[in-house]
């Protein structure tokens, strides 16, 4: 293929280009070439949006096209791509509207900083990390990550630059990999605009519904009904009329029992025992709607595209929802023969209402509700005063119905991002075998987030009520300037050189205002607060990068690519700001050897190997003082808020900064092969990647006796081996039908080799016990908490017949799964098409606080045999070293057992039907092309863990996916929709 054709093809497919008169012929040529030789000249987007032939790459790049991404019934990109790409681990926090997802490519590189990849949309890096961390994730609601602003329906294709060689040109931001998104645009010249309208609707239910025991009542033991107890170990519900003190049989209310909560609620306190479905009563059927309208057209000198989208999701938990509007416009305009310009503009508005988990959870009161208590039916506040709650369990947890009526966790973001470019492209040399392209692109990513946590007067743990309004305004400017040179020296050598620079300016202003101790119920606003405190914080940073790359191809068989980038970063200490990162990759298409060329079985074979180094910068500050805050620990609110009576205070910030900070360094070696067999109907790809991260910059937890909690310095090492296998097969192919299957398998071994001198582990989040930690000598991350004391051969040590915990916390499980696999199926018969994705995760551990707590409280069905009777537990008596002979109450034993963190660690293995879609293309009706479809998503087929879906957890950071306690649930959705094109 000629140079011009090649370049044009890549641009045609992947980046904005306007085919002018001259190119029109080439376009036809290119398309013809594409049809003839589809595989060899397939082009993928690589770093900085450069389109390259897939065969020339010395590293693995996975990409998904529009048809691979199943957007029906989902509102986030991460849900749309889950299970479809090897080496990309996506852990949704829940199915709640706007819930964050942790996405990590080839394992973590940073202990405490973000491990999320860089997102690039239409050539512009855009923010996708959460701006507000959920901290230790022990209270409050989940906070969205900013990838929620992107509409999955806008995606035309996604490339995943997984290894550092692939992403090295992005410099310091590239170490976590890059997700490059190209949005939809017009490709074919048409006399009139193409209008596409699509909508889909779905309903959601809990993917796995917990069914509590319905035999025993609220109480602390089998003999004691206690309407204030935190547990359901009480007497049989049917026996309540007979029990002393509360039973009605001896108090003139035969067949009834006395419940003081009914009296509080203004009802007759005498009631007959009955069983209520508190869980079924509480959770709604959720609802999701996605509607898109797009208009696009390619004209003689311009292409344009316009899109409008609305996504609305109503959660299964009352009052939770998300509403997103997206508008986008894209224009490419050919100015003159060598010149073109264009812009892409996107606007989004996202509002989310979410619900809290863990210590401020509301689902715990639902799950733990005693079966005899009518949680829905009994009023949730006392008559005449809505600020005094009535609940089966007093004071420290909200009645979920009261919560839904009164409290709110609200997030709203308005965002605009986009860029404009000017490009000059000129062909020269004999036969125009050389070209130069100069491109200047400037873009902005601006958004304002306003969040609000509202706790009304009467909220559990914050009786006086509080309002926390917080947010951030961000303004990120990006300028990218590149000069590209291409040459075909003769038919043997293909040369490309690129030089460029990039500047990024980031400004942010953070706000946080809290009003507490509200004057009266009914107006939860800062204006009604008696204590008001506020903070503002601004931050700025700049990074400037200079980069270059040289590629050389020889005889379409050997391809060498070398890149280098220097970054200068403001957020590092003086004289430590400049870093250089190189990469080199080599691809060898051995099937181009004369002996193998034209082989009928092995049609194509490539070996690839690459090496790269990239880094991450830290955020250095001169040591400073800050206004102290008092919260956390045992406090459920902030008991001390400065200024007090006009007095404020300063204390040293908890982190100290090392002025000798060096850039973190990630070295990556990757090798693999791509093979295609049987007329390219079977494709096999394998990648082995080794990654060694040294000199990590992280907040090293320091001994408290230093006076600091953290030191931002270089330390630690984490190394990762990852294996990725991708198989694609065309099982059937005929004009009327086809059937394709795909399999992707990933394994990961990411070991924390060392932390810092004297530091055994670092906390990523959690309670006192358990926590999610990075533990030296273990894979990342691990669960850390109290364990069962055991004999050397693993038997439980018992004291007085009961299990004993270690006093100190230890590493009790590694979280990383053994294998993550995705199976994709695409079939078509005439106008009927079926696609499905199945996810399988084998192994991996998580802490499931809900299961553990419900066992401890005698709520689960598993606990039914433990409510009555005694037994002699198996184990060794700690004092004597002999087998245990002490007989204990079963209840006592299992409460002791489930008080120990290790009992809450569960295997996360599961099989899930991620999505299945059946679609039917109606025959064309005038100008209208209709498609109807029906789908189901997240159908949990099997999980090793009992009672709950393992894909529900706390936190929006590195602990995400592994730490659960009364988190928002996961759901299954079923729905359908249609699409019309005209």
């Amino acid at each position, binding site marked *: 293929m000629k140079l011009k054709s090649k370049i044009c093809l890549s641009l045609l497919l992947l980046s904005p280009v306007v085919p002018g008169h001259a190119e029109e012929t080439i376009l036809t040529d290119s398309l013809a070439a594409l049809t003839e030789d589809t595989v060899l000249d397939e082009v993928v987007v690589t770093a900085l949006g450069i389109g390259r032939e897939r065969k020339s790459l010395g590293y693995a790049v996975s990409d998904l096209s529009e048809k691979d991404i199943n957007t029906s019934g989902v509102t986030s990109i991460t849900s749309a791509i889950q299970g479809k790409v090897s080496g990309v681990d996506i852990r949704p926090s829940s199915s709640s509207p706007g819930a964050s997802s942790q996405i990590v490519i080839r394992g973590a590189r940073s202990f405490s900083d973000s491990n999320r990849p860089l997102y690039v949309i239409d050539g512009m890096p855009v923010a996708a990390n959460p701006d507000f961390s959920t901290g230790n994730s022990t209270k409050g609601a989940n906070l969205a990550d900013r990838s929620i602003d992107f509409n999955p329906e806008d995606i035309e294709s996604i490339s995943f630059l997984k290894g550092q060689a692939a992403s090295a040109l992005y410099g310091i931001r590239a170490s976590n990999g890059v997700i490059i998104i190209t949005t939809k645009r017009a490709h074919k010249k048409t006399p009139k605009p193409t209008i596409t309208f699509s909508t889909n609707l779905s309903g959601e239910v809990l993917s796995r519904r917990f069914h509590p025991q319905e035999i025993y009542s609220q109480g*602390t033991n089998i003999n004691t009904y206690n309407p204030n107890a935190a547990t359901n170990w009480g007497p049989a519900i049917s026996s309540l009329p007979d029990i002393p003190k509360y039973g009605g049989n001896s108090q003139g209310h035969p067949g009834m029992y006395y419940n003081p909560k009914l009296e509080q609620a203004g009802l007759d306190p005498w009631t007959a025992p009955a069983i209520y479905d508190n869980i079924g009563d509480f959770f709604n059927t959720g609802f999701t709607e996605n509607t898109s309208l797009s208009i696009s057209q390619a004209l003689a000198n311009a292409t344009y595209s316009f899109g409008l989208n609305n996504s609305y999701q109503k959660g299964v938990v009352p009052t939770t929802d998300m509403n997103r509007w997206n508008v986008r416009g894209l224009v490419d305009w050919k100015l003159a023969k060598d010149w073109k310009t264009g812009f892409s503009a996107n606007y989004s508005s996202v509002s989310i209402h979410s619900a809290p988990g863990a210590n401020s959870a509301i689902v715990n009161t639902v799950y733990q509700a005693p079966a005899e208590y009518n949680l829905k039916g009994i009023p949730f506040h006392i008559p005449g005063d809505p600020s005094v709650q009535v609940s089966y369990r007093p004071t420290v947890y909200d009645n979920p119905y009261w919560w839904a009526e009164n409290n709110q966790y609200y997030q709203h973001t308005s965002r605009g991002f986009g860029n404009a470019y000017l490009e000059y492209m000129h062909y020269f040399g004999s036969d125009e075998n050389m070209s130069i392209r100069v491109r200047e692109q400037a873009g902005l990513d601006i958004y304002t987030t306003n969040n609000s946590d509202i706790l009304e007067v009467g909220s559990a743990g914050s009786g006086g009520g509080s309002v926390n309004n917080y947010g951030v305004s961000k303004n990120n400017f990006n300028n990218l300037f590149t000069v590209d040179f291409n040459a075909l020296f003769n038919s043997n050598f293909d040369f490309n050189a690129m030089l460029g620079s990039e500047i990024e300016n980031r400004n942010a202003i953070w706000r946080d205002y809290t009003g507490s101790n509200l004057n009266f119920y009914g107006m939860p606003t800062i204006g009604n607060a008696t204590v008001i405190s506020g903070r503002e914080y601004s931050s*700025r940073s700049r990074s400037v990068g200079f980069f270059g790359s040289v590629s050389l191809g020889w005889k379409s068989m050997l391809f060498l690519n070398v890149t280098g980038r220097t970054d200068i970063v403001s957020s590092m200490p003086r004289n430590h700001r400049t870093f250089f990162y190189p990469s080199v990759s080599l691809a060898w298409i051995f099937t181009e050897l004369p002996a193998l060329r034209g082989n009928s079985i092995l049609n194509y074979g490539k070996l690839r190997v690459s090496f790269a180094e990239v880094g991450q910068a830290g955020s250095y500050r001169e040591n400073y003082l800050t206004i102290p805050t008092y919260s956390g620990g045992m406090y459920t609110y902030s008991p001390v808020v400065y200024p007090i009576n006009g007095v404020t205070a300063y204390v040293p910030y908890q982190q100290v900064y090392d002025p000798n900070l060096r850039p973190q360094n990630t070295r990556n070696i990757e090798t693999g092969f791509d093979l295609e067999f049987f007329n390219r109907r079977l494709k096999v790809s394998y990648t082995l990647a080794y990654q060694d991260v040294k000199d990590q910059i992280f907040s090293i937890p320091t*001994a408290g006796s230093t006076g600091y909690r953290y030191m931002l310095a270089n330390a630690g090492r984490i190394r990762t081996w990852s294996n990725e296998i991708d198989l694609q097969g065309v099982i059937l192919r005929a004009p009327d039908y086809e059937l394709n299957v795909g399999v992707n398998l990933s394994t990961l071994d990411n070991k924390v080799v060392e932390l810092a001198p004297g530091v055994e582990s670092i906390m990523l989040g959690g309670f006192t016990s358990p926590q999610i930690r990075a533990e030296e000598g273990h894979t990342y991350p691990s669960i850390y908490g109290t364990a069962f004391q055991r004999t050397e051969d693993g038997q439980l040590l018992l004291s007085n017949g009961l299990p004993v915990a270690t*006093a*100190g916390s230890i590493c009790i499980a590694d979280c990383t799964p053994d294998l993550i696999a995705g199976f994709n199926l695409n079939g078509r018969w005439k106008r009927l098409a079926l696609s499905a994705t199945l996810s399988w995760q084998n192994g991996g551990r998580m802490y499931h606080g809900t299961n553990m707590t419900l066992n401890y409280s005698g709520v689960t069905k598993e606990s039914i045999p433990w409510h009555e009777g005694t037994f002699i537990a198996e184990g060794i008596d700690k004092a004597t070293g002999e087998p245990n002979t002490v007989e204990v109450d079963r209840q006592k034993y299992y409460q002791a057992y489930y*008080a120990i963190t290790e009992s809450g660690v569960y295997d996360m293995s599961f099989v899930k039907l991620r999505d299945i879609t059946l679609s039917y293309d109606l025959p064309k009706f005038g100008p209208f092309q209709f498609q109807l479809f029906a789908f189901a998503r997240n159908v949990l087929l099997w999980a090793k863990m009992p009672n709950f879906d393992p894909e529900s957890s706390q936190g929006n950071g590195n602990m995400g996916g592994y730490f659960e306690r009364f988190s928002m649930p996961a759901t299954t959705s079923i729905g359908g929709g249609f699409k019309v094109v005209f």
Partner: protein
Amino acid sequence: MKKRYNIFTLSLCSLLLLLFASGCTEDEMDRINTNTSTPPVSMVDARFQLSDAIMSMAFTTYGGSYAWHVASYTEQIFGDGGAQMMFAELRDPIITAAPTTFNNEWNNTYRNLLNIKIIIDKCENGINQGQLDLMGMGRVLKVLGFQALTELHGDIPFNDALNEEIRNPRLEKQEDIYASLLNEIDVAIENLSEAVENNMAYAGKQDILYEGDTKKWLALAYAVKGRLLLDGSAKIPSNVSKALEYAEKAIENGFDGAVLDIFNGVEADNSWAAYFRSRHYSGACATVALLMQERSDPRLPIYASDVFETGVLYAPAGDATLSATIDNVGTPAWMTNESASIKLLSKASIHFIIAECKRRLSLDASSDFEAGVRESMKDYSVSSGVAIADADIASYISQFGTPTLEEIMVQKYISQARDCQIETYNDLRRCMANGEEFIKLQNPNNINNGQNRWPYSLPYGNSDVVSNPFIASVFGTGNNAGYYIFERPLWLFSN
């Protein structure tokens, strides 16, 4: 046309390169990275650091989780709620020996001591040079902080601590730390005496304890020294007479208690009340209630208040069933008073210290005993808003005649149930070292399977256990990691 474009391209490239180059000089990058939101350490006058040095000492170190837990060990408060405090009440090592239990207080006390260190440094060499009042206040607070740490944990990082260059501070012997603290309080007394002489008033309203009244700080310094001396009197019996000397000096200099009364239920809540509001884990304990009952103590209705209207006024120490319940056992009335004060050292305690020393030295302690009881009555009454009639107090005191040492200690114990639980824990261990058992601990869980489960000290904070090998090695590993706290008394509380 083509040429013009090329010149244009070239100019554009040059301009961009120039822009980029000028945008990334070290000076420009420094300017961008300037922190405009929070002040560098050197910029801030130390008096602004004093306020929280006081608040943190009272709220976190003396009134926080250390106090909540040792109150269960001293049986002054019953731990319930079916969670963490239940395990403390059951003397389960899962809480009592866990390094995580006191991690926050360990970290926050050291962090406060770092703040205090910076105050003292600024008074020595920084922007507050020569401000002896501020320096003396810093030293008193430093002694209070390290005293709490060493008396609760034993050997701790001291000279190596609070230094960003030393990430793994060595442990030092309690004996050496104790001697250093006595020296430090002497220097504080010197600083404050000089500040009084020179009418220094640099702290002003930032001094939330005494509003910059240096004389009151001097009196507190004497009181702190008196208490510190008495705490070591089992080990060093000659301390008793010295403790008496300094405690009396405190009173002579107008010591009126180190009472932080800034709490107003609005911007600042009393730590016990905030804890109770958050968790409801604190109940009244029979050990205190029965001592009160035996004496017809007018404080009993305040101490065992039926706030949940269940009729269960108090619970026997260690009762497994009651500790599993929440909002069931009665609780001291002050638990619901967010405006109650917190004391670093109460006036009642100083009176009881004088009474104890005098009694041990065979001197008449009656008036000091009476003053102590009266102060305690006032404290119970003010903190709960329940009046106690003068006549009731008078008749109550009269029943004791010449107070015995035991009654002095019982009254101190009752008095300190209000908010000096750490001092009570010290008193119990000090008396145990003397072979005295004025307060008979009732919790059956103190012995489990024949093994002691009453903590002689508190486990180190987790941050040091996992990040400081010197502490990790003392803490131990395996099944019995952390169990050292059940094995031997601290140096200070042994003889």
